[in-house]
């Protein structure tokens, strides 16, 4: 029962938030679009000029860009995929009554409240080739014969940063799924047990369908966050060695740091368009829910 009467009150209430968002997001987005059509390099401020699709053409012939796009896809698929699976497992494990559950639940969420910089640095220390604890453990277990400089060789650096982003994202998935599980009716499980369903059947035919909205929304949010994340990789490897951990957002950040703003903007627009593919179904679903 909402107020239908014409009134300016809702507009006044929404105005401050809207004005801030328009000024800080929409105007910059338009500026970024304009900048992406210019040769805009702050190191050469006198050579700023309109070059049409020049930056975009450069991007699609730049192997670093194409590799970064491919790497971003792997980064998101593996990163978010494992975050979901492990987060789901953790949620199921925590979704039972046992002593100390509340405390364990709270404590296992700490990675979510830890700054990305610190996460990057903590893991860099764990992976350290000389004094790193991971090497020590693997050596003691006789899994490896000599210490591996995980983040400074091409073959192990990218898997290394992916493990870190998985570690960061498990709690958020677990948190959301655990909360959604509370809303699943007990009766469904009891009925299934009477019919002789196995645990696996219960999982796939009751649990997952009941919480699929939460899975969907959480997944989309994480995809966007992980695709945009700069701080973890930047503080572990800065995109190296030999660009082997350079995802698109890190590449853009590196270019922006190098003050080549036109080219960085064009690549950022490409990233935004890639994410739009994910966002559109999300918005659609959101309003479908609202209607019903």
């Amino acid at each position, binding site marked *: 029962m909402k107020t239908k009467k014409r009134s300016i009150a809702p507009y006044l209430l929404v105005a401050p938030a809207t004005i801030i968002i328009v000024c800080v997001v929409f105007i910059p*987005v338009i500026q970024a679009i304009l900048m992406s059509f210019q040769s805009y390099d702050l190191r050469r401020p006198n050579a700023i000029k309109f070059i049409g699709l020049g930056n975009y053409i450069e991007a699609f012939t730049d192997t670093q860009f194409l590799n970064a796009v491919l790497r971003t896809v792997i980064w998101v698929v593996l990163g978010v995929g494992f975050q979901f699976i492990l987060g789901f497992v953790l949620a199921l494990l925590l979704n039972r009554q046992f002593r100390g559950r509340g405390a364990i639940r709270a404590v296992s969420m700490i990675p979510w409240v830890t700054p990305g910089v610190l996460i990057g640095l903590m893991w860099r220390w764990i992976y350290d080739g000389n004094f790193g604890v991971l090497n020590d453990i693997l050596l003691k277990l006789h899994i490896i014969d000599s210490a591996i400089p995980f983040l400074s060789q091409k073959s192990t650096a990218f898997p290394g940063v992916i493990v870190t982003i998985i570690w960061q994202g498990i709690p958020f998935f677990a948190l959301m799924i655990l909360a959604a599980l509370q809303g699943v009716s007990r009766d469904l499980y009891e009925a299934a047990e009477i019919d002789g369903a196995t645990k696996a059947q219960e999982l796939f035919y009751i649990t997952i369908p009941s919480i699929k909205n939460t899975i969907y929304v959480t997944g989309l949010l994480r995809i966007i966050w992980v695709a945009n994340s700069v701080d973890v990789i930047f503080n572990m490897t800065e995109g190296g060695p030999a660009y082997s951990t350079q995802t698109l957002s890190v590449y853009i950040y590196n270019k922006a740091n190098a003050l080549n703003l036109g080219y960085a903007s064009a690549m950022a627009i490409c990233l935004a368009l890639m994410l739009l593919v994910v966002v559109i179904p999300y918005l659609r679903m959101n309003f479908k829910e609202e209607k019903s």
Partner: protein
Amino acid sequence: MKYEKPGTKALRLILLIVMLVFILFPFYWTFLTSIKPENELYGDTVTYFTVHPTFEAYKNLFTTTVNFLSAMGNSLIVAVSTTLVTLCVSTMAAYAFSRYDFPGRKALMSIFLCNNMFPTVLLLIPLYTIMRKLHLLFTPGSLILAYTTFTIPFSVWLLLGFINDLPMSLEEAAQVDGCTRGKAFIKIILPLLNPSIVATGVYIFMQSWNEYTFAMMFTNTATRTIPVALKSLIGQLGVQWDLLTAGGILTIIPVCIMFFFAQKRLVEGLTAGAVKG
């Protein structure tokens, strides 16, 4: 409940322990590193426990190298201001979305949602030039403005769920008794909403306390926040791990404490928002 084989229970326990070790070990390691004496830190053997804990690194953090104390102060100013501003404007907007049906409501809500989707690096570049023109660059104002924008959508989303859960009849009763709409909001809704506002505030505080990408570009030595100060502990000669981990521990303690108090309500809001949209 079905009869459960003891093996299943043991398996579940083992799995839980393995996951908790994976999640928590990095924090243990960070803390341990921060209190290890130097000879154990870079020694020949890696130690998993120390019998000679030292808080030298914490002392050095404040006395030598970067000015960590002022970075903490800067972070506090930015995070508190962002939290207050975002909470004010988001509560107003969420209330309007929840209680009024007005032309443009859907369009505005879409704008709010979309806002979360833009790559931060896309905004970084134009915002840098805008902040420079506004003379906000290298002041806390630039970060407060940026963080406010990034936290509004999620906060509106959270608060909308909380307000939708409060029945309209509460305000209607108050209005029948002669309250104006505004007064009904302040006297009835706001007190009921209080715990939810606190939880949302914790979320906003966390985000602004932890953010690095913008802070790196928009601050200088005098105005830098904790994440930037942490990064700056990495010098030309490599990383001083004892200082860095001590700084890390000090960084997460405040947010952890806040999160523990607010987590239950925050989770309720997150999922309510996820399910209801």
